[in-house]
């Protein structure tokens, strides 16, 4: 347990210290949100119709950004070999890494999501549910994305490959999250979508570390 805490502390420190933390993902998220009115047209009525959905889609894309460095950095400098030899199983290492990814990237993005959605014209009442959905979905994005990051270790093209592998896996959380937000806005039953989103994210947390550990062992072998 102390080992896990130390690992988590290391990941958090590394992320804030060297990678610029969440700034990159936040900047990407803002840039995506800026391009949307430029592409779709600035009329408030048209923007408001797609605002919650596009804010959610941009969130999924922004959470892809820092995935490339999730295992790659440790793989390149040999730290992953040491972690694999250490007392903690690789499954726990993968879990700690993804949890750190969630804390440093998904949580700031989740706090940013209602700001972006409101700026695009979504009603402000949606802000609380947008934060909650983004937090729950971010957990799934981190743990599903980690599978893609671990699988593409040692490959020739990291970033795009991760996106191609991971984006089909993002289909269910995108559907459930955007559906829950939309249903809440329309005064319909939003709890089903939220519950399904939570279920998907939690099962990703349960299954993901095993796939990631297997992929890391394969890359290190």
């Amino acid at each position: 347990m102390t080992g896990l805490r130390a690992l988590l502390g290391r990941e958090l420190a590394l992320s804030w210290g060297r990678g610029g933390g969440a700034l990159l993902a936040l900047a990407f998220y803002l840039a995506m949100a800026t391009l949307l009115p430029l592409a779709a047209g600035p009329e408030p009525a048209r923007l408001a119709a797609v605002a919650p959905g596009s804010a959610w889609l941009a969130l999924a894309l922004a959470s892809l950004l820092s995935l490339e460095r999730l295992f790659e950095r440790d793989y390149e400098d040999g730290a992953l070999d040491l972690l694999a030899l250490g007392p903690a199983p690789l499954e726990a290492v993968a879990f700690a890494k993804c949890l750190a990814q969630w804390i440093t990237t998904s949580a700031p993005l989740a706090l940013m999501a209602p700001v972006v959605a409101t700026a695009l014209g979504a009603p402000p009442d949606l802000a609380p549910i947008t934060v909650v959905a983004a937090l729950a979905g971010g957990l799934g994005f981190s743990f599903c994305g980690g599978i893609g990051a671990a699988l593409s270790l040692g490959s020739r093209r990291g970033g795009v490959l991760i996106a191609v592998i991971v984006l089909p896996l993002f289909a269910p959380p995108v559907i459930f999250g955007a559906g829950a937000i939309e249903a809440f806005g329309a005064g319909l039953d939003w709890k089903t979508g939220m519950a399904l989103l939570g279920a998907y994210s939690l099962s990703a947390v349960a299954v993901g570390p095993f796939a990631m550990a297997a992929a890391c062992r394969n890359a290190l072998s």
Partner: protein
Amino acid sequence: MIAILTNPQRFMALSAWAAPTLGAIAAVLGLTGLWFDFIAPPDYQQGYTVHLMFIHVPAAWLSLFVYVCLGAASFIGLVFRAPIADAAARAAAPLGAGFTFLALATGSLWGRPMWGTWWVWDARLTSVLVLFLFYLGYLALQSAIDDEAKASRACAILALVGLINLPIVHFSVVWWNTLHQGASVFRAGGPAMPPAYLVPLLTLALAYTAAFGSLWLVRIRAEVWRRRANVLALRAAG
């Protein structure tokens, strides 16, 4: 079963006659099915486009069937480290992508005259499209890793993750579709299919399956030969 997959000698001996036999069965069934297809009367609603169904529906079935085969081969390759299973997974993926593409393309060609549009964001169409994306991701990962053994194992992990995810994706897309209250593009369940349509459909479905089996075996054999050639080249060089 496992012995055949772990022993390339036995596999090559078995597949040497199984592949052409399945190919001959596929040719006979395919020609028969196409004949029944041509003599089938035009549908009272779909007109002559109903003929496209007999090509489209088996392709859609095969797209899922091949993914299950891919998942099973990946599992055996990962757990039992059977070399033939690795080759089988590697050989199945492009075939599956091809069947999925065929299903999407013929469906689109059929949709244009019948629905008046090339593409609808319907639950079934969308989940087949996501299946196609799974195949593309698998092929992309396979070609991106140089070390073949590592690529096989990474792809096997991805195939198993995809196998868990496919039902979830399908379920979520259906849920999304009912949420959005999309126009119901499929006719409300009409009368049961008459034999004039059922016979060509089932014959062609069997023909597709046999053709897949034959092509799969041929591709696995090619993969085994390619590995042997690599070994020989290495030996000659060193």
